[in-house]
């Protein structure tokens, strides 16, 4: 290959990147990192600001070098936000490059973390997912279902038994979510039954019901 982006383009493509030296001192960070970790400056020890959640290693140059094939989860100690990405070791320069982005599936949390949608690069799917989930949030009230949680890119809702009659033909149903955002991204709904105690706001069961493709 003959092409490589310049530093400015690199920063635009990877606004959440980190460059860490052999002593695990932060040497450079993407433009969105200071918003996420207020007050962070180059020259600070990596471990003061981040904890490696996955893989289960101590953050040393050698340990990271051994785990370059692993997906990394870095926890920002300031606010608990998880950055998911990969670590590359530049052996000749004895530097570690982390490229990744925050794992956030709820748009309302962005502000809390000092971020906006424009902090995410276009090639990152996090913003799309957040937007899709916001759309689901606005829809579920109409159907008397309760959002349990999002699990990765799954959006989980429950309905109590026989809460209302089934919508007739032509009524709104799973098709509501199918039209959004574009045909290429059709969600695959699955549904199931749970025969445990009735769900209540105080006592939530998280047993995954038997999945039945809709």
């Amino acid at each position, binding site marked *: 290959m003959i092409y490589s982006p310049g530093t400015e383009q690199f920063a635009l493509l990877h606004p959440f990147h980190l460059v860490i030296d052999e002593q695990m001192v932060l040497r450079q960070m993407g433009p969105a990192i200071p918003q996420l970790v207020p007050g962070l400056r180059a020259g600070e020890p990596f471990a003061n600001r981040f904890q490696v*959640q*996955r*893989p*289960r*290693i101590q953050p040393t140059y050698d340990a990271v070098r*051994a*785990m370059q*094939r*692993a*997906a*990394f*989860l870095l926890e920002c100690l300031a606010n608990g936000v*998880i950055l*998911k990405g990969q670590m590359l070791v530049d052996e000749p320069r004895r530097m570690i490059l982390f490229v990744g982005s925050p*794992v956030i599936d709820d748009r309302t949390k962005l502000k809390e973390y000092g971020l906006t949608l424009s902090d995410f690069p276009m090639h990152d799917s996090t913003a799309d997912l957040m937007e899709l989930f916001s759309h689901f949030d606005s829809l579920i009230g109409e159907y008397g279902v309760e959002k349990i949680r999002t*699990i*990765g890119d*799954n959006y989980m809702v429950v309905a109590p038994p026989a809460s209302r009659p089934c919508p007739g033909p032509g009524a709104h149903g799973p098709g509501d979510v199918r039209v959004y955002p574009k045909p290429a991204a059709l969600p695959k709904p699955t549904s199931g039954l749970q025969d*445990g105690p009735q769900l209540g706001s105080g006592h939530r*069961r*998280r*047993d*995954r019901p038997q*999945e039945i493709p809709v």
Partner: protein
Amino acid sequence: MYGMVNLAIEGLLTERYGHSVWQSIKDKAAPGIDRFLTMEQYPEDVTQGLVVAAAEITGRPTDEILNEIGEYFTGYAQRSGHGELLDIIGSNLPEALDNLDNMHTRVALAFPDLRPPSFWCTDVDEHSLILHYLSERSGLAPMIPGAVRGLGRLFDTEATVRQVASREDGADHDQFLVTFDAKSQG
């Protein structure tokens, strides 16, 4: 520990020894639990207790039981909703082992309470590799040889697994020498 592991133990012991033997193992180790649920969290000592009770009731060593649980686990995971994940874990055994950590990280993202172990490979050649295993739990390392053989079965690959470093003997983490046929690399 999520119930999935306890359910795998139930599946294995029921298959091998019948329902009534399983029932007495469960009554001994987890008398208060009617049935295990995949996504429910259970105390760690429930899992340990099931293995110990199984060893006592069947008269077999706990390490052997753990080894069998490991071997059973891959197939169980495949049948219980994780088949799609296992389909994309790699195209042969060494590749799958190399991706094992990555797969656990993805699952950990979906289930924040999950505290999965880490795996990585070194000394990889055509016929063998060293698999490193690091868990915050202790005592489950005997599952690994079985689990690797079970994973090998997904690729029609016979694997032999020998522990070469053990945390119990003071090593930093457990290590296993995995050998497999070269034809599985295709």
